[in-house]
């Protein structure tokens, strides 16, 4: 592909004068192949898969920033909703109900995700999540009840819940659990203004490829790994609507979807 000098200059202007930047690059990572009936083995696989897949994510991001002069504000990871991965060991079996081995519960996965995120140097990791719009599996419920502790004891892990959809309706039991998690997460971080609650998002119709924090997760319809690129545009839009022209109305600029001077 050959770019004209005009295109190059135009792009440079967007970066230097119009606040265009890459808001985030988010690597989606499938963790379904990490499931195991032994929680510690599953957690170990989760750590290995994330640190292997995203080993060079921040490094390459930094290289692109340096090479092209494009600011990349955040580097992030989204993973398979963890209740789907942990379902094999956080099931409703007698062993799980009895608590399994000490430290084998949902917090093992929260701590593992945090450790992996720290290791690869990303800003956030989304996917301490459960999709419960039709109902809850035993693993879903254990993950949801662990969300406040998971968010309060980590810095990078983000949680999300899908509690409703246009096909299933609204799962009011899950809505109540989500509200309780929101409240408890805030209470557990009262010294920081309830900050942990800002890493929990409750959805209707959550898209399965959502790269936006705190609600990012890597849904089951995705490939093994994928990189999402989010571009920031408000500065460019503002540039197109300079102060003196805002009084002219929308019509001249929007009549055929193109910008008119």
């Amino acid at each position: 592909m050959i770019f004209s000098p005009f295109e190059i200059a135009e792009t440079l202007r967007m970066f230097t004068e119009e606040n265009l930047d890459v808001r985030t690059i988010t690597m989606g990572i499938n963790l379904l192949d990490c499931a195991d009936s032994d929680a510690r083995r599953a957690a170990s696989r989760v750590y290995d898969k994330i640190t292997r897949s995203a080993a060079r994510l921040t490094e390459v991001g930094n290289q692109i920033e340096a090479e092209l002069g494009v600011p990349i504000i955040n580097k992030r990871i989204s993973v398979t909703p963890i209740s789907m991965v942990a379902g094999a060991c956080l099931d409703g079996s007698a062993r799980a109900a009895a608590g399994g081995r000490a430290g084998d519960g949902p917090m093992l996965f929260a701590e593992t995700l945090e450790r992996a995120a720290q290791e690869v140097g990303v800003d956030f990791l989304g996917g301490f999540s459960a999709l419960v719009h039709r109902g809850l599996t035993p693993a879903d419920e254990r993950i949801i009840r662990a969300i406040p502790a998971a968010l309060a004891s980590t810095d990078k892990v983000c949680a999300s819940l899908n509690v409703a959809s246009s096909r299933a309706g609204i799962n009011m039991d899950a809505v109540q659990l989500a509200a309780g998690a929101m409240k408890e997460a805030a209470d557990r971080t009262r010294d920081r203004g309830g900050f942990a609650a800002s890493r929990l998002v409750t959805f209707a119709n959550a898209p399965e490829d959502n790269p936006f924090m705190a609600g990012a997760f890597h849904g089951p319809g995705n490939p093994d790994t994928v990189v999402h690129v989010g571009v920031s545009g408000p500065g460019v839009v503002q540039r197109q609507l300079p102060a003196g022209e805002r009084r002219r109305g929308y019509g001249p600029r929007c009549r055929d979807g193109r910008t008119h001077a």
Partner: protein
Amino acid sequence: MSEDEAMARAAEMGVLTLEKLEAMTAICSVGLDMIAVPGDTSVDTLAGIIADEMAIGVMNHKTTAVRIIPVPGKIAGEWVEFGGLLGRAPIMPVSRASCTGFVRRGGIIPAPVTGFRN
């Protein structure tokens, strides 16, 4: 809310309320994001706000989301500082009327008839 300075200012002036924001999400935007509410807001009231927002998503066949922070120890009109990209947000007043009877019914609120389309 906290991530947009102009919106935070409008909320402080009482121009943007929680109810108005919720109404706006029926047309545009994807929900109530980074909204700070009083720390004594009950779990049932939070559940009511979530359920209302979910209904907007379900009926409009679009994604809606709720990210609310019930800020411990803060009351409406005060501010909370989160720092960094998340900025600061005014604590928005929340209706004191109870929705306990409704939200504690539990179970599933059925999908609209259009949910049968395949």
